[in-house]
Structure formats: structure tokens, C-alpha cells
């Protein structure tokens, strides 16, 4: 089947029920998307499908066929996306393992709501961070919303 990932097109020969996560990680060798729970609980595997955040560990690859898949590697070529920059500015990551998923979830939120309230952030940011970086995730999202109005035109 044909997959459109980060502006590239790949032809893959896999079982249709293989979770998208494993196609991304082990077939396409894009390792920025992480495996952590396997049951869509933690969000470490979050990617965008047609702009929507999806927990790829529980999303069969066939359902992604023909759609636009974006992984952390496709967010920007040089970590220049405002959310990535805010993550650096606020020194958000600790171990960093969940942060690809956190960033993808945050980008999706900001794309939809350029100036999210705390309640919006609470509702959208349900990914688990075992290191406990939540305070800084919230601060970074508010910072992006406050200083990148032109980037996020609703």
C-alpha cells in the first residue's frame, strides 16, 4: 500500500492491521515516534493524520492509506517550528521520550485553537509524561499562543 509521510510517498508491503506506529518506526525507520504503552493510553506515539492527532500504536496502517501522515520529523526541517522552539526555551523535556508525542499533540491543539485556555490545554494534552514536565508544557503552549499569533492564524 502507499503511504504519504512527511511529504514523501512510500510503498510498503505489510499486514493491513499492523499498527501505523510499527510501520513508521521499523519499516520507514523514522524513530522519533515512540512506543510506550501499545494501547493508546499514553500518547508517546502521537502523529498527525490529515492534521488530527492520532495514537499510532492503536491505529491500523490500512486506515492511514491515502491520507497525509506527519511525524515529529516532518514538523520542520530544522526544529524551527514555534512549538519546538518554545519547548527549548522553556526547557520542557527531561528524559525526552514522550516529547515527540507531546509536541505533536500541542501543535494540533494550537492549529485548532491559536489561543487555548487552560481548560483547552487540559482537554487536549492527555499524554503521559513520567518525568512530570506538565508545568513547562503548559507554559510553553501559552508562550507559543502569546508570541506567535501570526504563525497561528485561525
Amino acid at each position, binding site marked *: 500500500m502507499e503511504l504519504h509521510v512527511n511529504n*514523501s*510517498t*512510500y*510503498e*510498503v*508491503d505489510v499486514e493491513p492491521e*499492523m499498527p501505523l506506529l*510499527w510501520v513508521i518506526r*521499523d*519499516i*520507514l*525507520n*523514522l*524513530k*522519533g*515516534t*515512540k*512506543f*510506550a*504503552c*501499545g*494501547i493508546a*493510553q*499514553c500518547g*508517546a506515539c502521537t502523529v498527525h493524520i490529515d492534521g488530527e492527532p492520532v495514537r499510532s500504536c492503536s491505529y491500523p496502517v490500512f486506515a492511514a492509506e491515502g491520507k497525509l501522515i506527519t511525524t*515529529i*520529523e516532518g514538523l*520542520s526541517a*530544522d*526544529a524551527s517550528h514555534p512549538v*519546538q522552539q518554545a*519547548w*527549548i526555551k522553556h*526547557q*520542557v*523535556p*527531561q*528524559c*525526552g*521520550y*514522550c*516529547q*515527540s508525542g507531546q509536541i505533536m499533540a500541542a501543535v494540533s491543539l494550537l492549529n485548532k485553537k491559536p489561543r487555548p485556555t487552560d481548560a483547552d*490545554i*487540559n*482537554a487536549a*494534552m*492527555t*499524554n*503521559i*509524561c*513520567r*518525568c*512530570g*514536565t*506538565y*508545568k*513547562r*508544557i*503548559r507554559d510553553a503552549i501559552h508562550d507559543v499562543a502569546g508570541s506567535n499569533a501570526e504563525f497561528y492564524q485561525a
Partner: protein
Amino acid sequence: MNKPATNLSRRKFLITSTAISGGFALGLQIPGTSAQQEGQGNNINIWVEIHADDAVTIKYARTEMGQGSLTSAPQLVADELDADWNQVTIEYVDVNEHIRNDRQWGAMVTVGSQTIRLSQDYLRRAGASARAMLVAAAAQAWDVPAEEIAVANGTISHEASGHRSGFGAMAELAATMPVPETVNLKDPADWHIIGQPFPRVDIPASVDGSQVYGIDAELPGMVYAAVAQCPVFGGTVRSFDASRARDRRGIIDIFGIDDGLALVVVADNWWRAKQALDEISIDWDTKGNENVSNESIKAFFQKNLDAPDGAPMPNNAGDADAAIAEADQVIEADYYTPYLSHSPMEPMGATVHIQEDRVDVWTSTQAPVASLTSVAEALGIPEEDVYLHRVQAGGGFGRRGGSTDYSRQAALVAQAMPLGTPVKLLWTREEDMQHDFYRPLAMYRIKAGLDADGYIKGWRARVASGSILNQMRGVPLSNGFDGISCEGFTRLPYQIEDQFQDFRQCATHVPLGFWRTVGWSQTPFAREQFIDELAAAAGEDPYYFRLKHMAEDELSRHILEKVAEAIGWDEAPPKGHFRGIATTEPYGSFTAAVVELSVNDAGVINIHRVIQGIDPGHVVNPDNVKAQLEGATVWAISAAMWGEITIEEGRVQESNFHNYRLMRLAEMPVMETVLAPTGGFWGGVGEPGQAPILPALCNAIYAATGTRVRSLPLQHHGFTLA
């Protein structure tokens, strides 16, 4: 499959190239610095390498797993070196080189909040020594007295002659200078890199997906292994039926390893291996532990709480029983803390590649030498032939510190494959949660007297717990006493003349391990709540009750006063809000916390504010210390609210994050961190923040509801978190 050439990631390149070239440390480039030029460096000592272009490479021996010392430890070296931080690059020490050179880089483990406190002296000396050699080189080159030479921000200068030089031009000569026998370390007032909130060097790679963890190793021709271990700890495979699994796509082999301790499926893709594993029915020999339950374990611990004799603690003094007998009031309480799982976000796993003359290993580990050794032992080969590649760990929290179960398994699977086949072994989340080395279950009984003036007269405490050292490592306990289980009791910050405390080991079949903050993650739940119980019995304010017993403990008093000041303890909280306070002394640091909350009639806890204070002596990177306190608070609240690993039929009942709840962003309280370093000592930072949170939270719940919670987690008492 059509893969565009431009899609080759940086990570792939690094891993592939290290695999070919022999596998050395992964260099981390600080943004904005010039690239290191290969082959031009001069090793001034084992920690410092200076390059012709003035770039300075500082070696880092421990692991980075989020605690930040990949940045802060080199800050110690760079400060004494008087380097320009913008010219510093940090590079992991190669483990194989370490082993071949008498383990000259010292401890490599990242455990016990020890990287700064236990390496600060030799790291600062390494920086000072390298600086002295650069000065000696300049003195010779310029023919001027060394005493007249100044070094600042990466520049060596001699004012009288007008000579100036970067480090690079002097590096070759400096490397030939004698190593100074003694060096003077700076007065802390002169530090200019220590104490600065420099951005962590590993963070840029964590925002674009390029950070490499153990799970990310990828080699040509690699096969993947999924693993199942007996749900009842210590059990083995008696037989298995793989008839439905064998014919599935991509399956290469199915076999047991380690005398049946694990069954492994090897496939051309990990998901295929795991799917096949789920299709195999396994008959386990559970070795007689299939009837152990939480209730049977609790009954066993209760007996040990009631038993007359225990192993006495070293700080016992006076006659506790006599003092209690004379007291006006006697208070006694029992406390219970459950088993807990580490659950770092990156599951356990390792990649092992066996070739004719060498073995390469990629794994996220807090103990690189132990991981390397586990592979050497599993394969029966010399340690010198094993090359362990340094990667960031996707969380550790102790799980990757003392145990090397998964690297051993990967080695055994690789050994069973044709020579030269790289094997990546990966556990599921379920496997991780049900085969952890758990934070010990423990019970505590404390009894104390109060005199008419509200002073503690006589203190008895019994700790009934498993012993991590004895049960995991086989370390014999001296006179039956385990200090780690008794952290928090072996040095009370409260001045009590007559005290008697003891320990009884309660060994079960549940594997135990070091869990973030270890004994200090649970003993304060008992100690600091009991102090509150005494304060309540005395009719006194819990903060001032503590202070009046701390007359001789200036540092404990100091941090407690700082957090009380930060919350405004003397002013009443907003209506309906209640506060709890606690203080602790973990890992050479002093930490205290105040939690302010409200609880509604339905038991919903709304945490309004958390004040978390630390006095670690010296602060190396203040922003990182704050981050550690923030994270430790989240960690502690998760444990308090929901944390429990439950044993039924000898096996763990929890399996994944749906039934082992961890805190999420919406539940994050407003928190303020107070850094209150008093200087003069070096304490830890990664773990101490957790210690006072649990009791401060429970003390606040008591203040709000009158309910004294003596067993965890809070969810069993009808409490939920807003």
C-alpha cells in the same frame, strides 16, 4: 519499498557509522559552537580534551535520563577550567575504554542522586588541573612566570607582556606538562559557570525526534525478539504450543532462554513477533508461589510488625520505653506503603550484535558497566570484547540501575541466532509492569510520648520491609539491619533524647528494586505524618511543633522556614483551603514542602498550591534543579493518589497505564520551587524533591477532612484528584 535518499535521518547515520567504526561515544554538539575537528584534540586529562580550534571536549561518564547532569556535571569541569561554555562539547565516556583502562573514570552509575555530590570533587579537580597545565604551557611558551598568567572565558593572557591565546594554541604543549600534584579549587564566590541556568545540552535533540534511545538502534539484517516471562515471579516454561504462531508471517524462531525463565519469539519485525507470542499457549511451572496474594503478604508483614525483636538502628539512644511510660500522652500509629512500579516511558529492551571478534550492545541503562558485564557473562566472553553504546535513557527512576535482566536476555537470543545477526529485544508495557523490580512494600509502627509542654518524650519505631540490597543483590545484612529501608529514621531531625527503632526484613517472592527516592519515597509518609499526629495531640501548629523540636538541626529548620515563608504560613489560607507541611533530609540535601488544597464532600481533592523547597548545599544548574523538583512532585502525587502494585495468585494484577494510573497534565497543580542553598556541602537533586510531598499532601488532607490516611494509595480511601 521506495525510500527517498533525503530521508536518511541523522540518527541512522550516527548509529550506522559507529557500528562500522568500532562504536565510540556519541558526541553532543552544543548549538552555536564550531564542529569538533577529528584528530586534532589533545587529552589534557581523562576528562578534558582541547582542540586546535579552541573547542573543549568534556567527558561525561554517567547516563542522561532526564536528570540533567549531562549538562551540570561538565559545568563543574568547565568552571575550574575557566573555559568559555560556548566552546564546550560534551562527550560520553566509552564503556569499553573505561573497562580496558582500570575503570579510570570512576563510577558510571546514575543512581542515588549522586552524579554531582559524589563526583564534584574529582570533576572540579580535573578542570583545575587542566587549567594549571594550560598555564604552565603558556608560561613556557611566553617565558613568563606562571603566577602572572590569567585565564578567563577560554582565553589565557599575560598582562605585562600583552600575550593572549585561546586554549587551542597551547593544547599540544599543555598535554606534555606534568600533572600538578595539588590544585586549589575556587572559592564559590568566584564561580561563573557553576550556578548558571544553562540550557540542557540534550534538549534540542528531544524536540525534533533525533534523540537516540536504546529502543532506536537499527542495524542491517536485524531481527526482533518479543519475550514472555512467567506471570508468577521465578516461574519457568514447562511446555508451550506454538502451532498457531509458527506459520505467521515473518516468524524466524520460537524458543526458551535461561532455563525456561523466558519464552522468545524472533521475527523480521517486532510487531509480528509480539502478535505471534500472543498466539502461543504456555504452561508455566509457577514454583509454589501461585497462592501468594496481597492479603497473605500483608499478614506476613503484620506479624513482623508485631514481633518482639528487630535489628536495632544505629541511632538508638537512652531508654525509649521508660520515657514513654512517664509521658503525659502516648500516641501510636501504623502505616502502610504498597509495592510500586517504575514504569519509565521507554520500555525495557536491548540490541545485541555478536560478531567474530566483538559484541556491540545498545541499551538504555543507568549502569553501563553492569549492562556490559551482563552481556559478557551471558555469552561467557571477556568484558573487553563487549562494546556498549551510550544512549539517552527514556526514563530510568531506578529500573535501569541495578537490574540487567533485559540486556542479558538480548544477549542470549543473539547467541541463539546465526553469528552476525543483530537482535533487538523489546518488552511490552505489560511485561515491564508485571516484571519490574518493585519499590518495596513496607509497614511502619511508631509510638511516642508527649509531656505536658508538648515535647516528644520517648520514640519507638519499627520498620517492616523487604531489603533491596539483600533480595536483589544478595548483599548480606549486617546484624539483620538494612539502612536503605530505614532512611528517614536513622537520623531524625527532631531532638528526642530517648529513642529506640528497629528493622525486620520481610522477604517475599516479589522482586525488589531501587525506585526513585528509594526508602525516602515511603518512610516520610509515616514519620512526617506521625509528627503531625503528635502536633495534633499536643494541640499545636504542625509547623511550629516541628521547629521547636529542631533546635539543634539548623539546616532542617532553615529549609522548613523557607517553605513556610513562601506560602505565608502565618497568614490564614483562603477560605476552604487547608495546608500540610513536611520536611526531609534525603541524599545529602534538605527538602521541605507545603501543600495547600481543598477537599469537597465527594472526596475530590483540589490541590491549589505546592511549595517545594530544597537546600542541596550548592546549586550547579538552578533551572534544572527546579525542573527536578517539579517532576518529583508529579511523581509523588501519582504514587499518593493511585500507586499500587497488587499481587493475586502470585502475579501482578496491574498491566498498563489504564490500571496503573499516572498523573496527567490537567491534574498538575500550581507549583513554586524554592532554591535555598546554604553552601558548604553537596547534596543530591534528582530524588530528594519527592520525599516531603507525600506526607505534606496527607497532612493537608487531614487538616481539610480530619481523616488521617495511614495507608496508600489515596484512591482506596475514596479520594480522587480534581
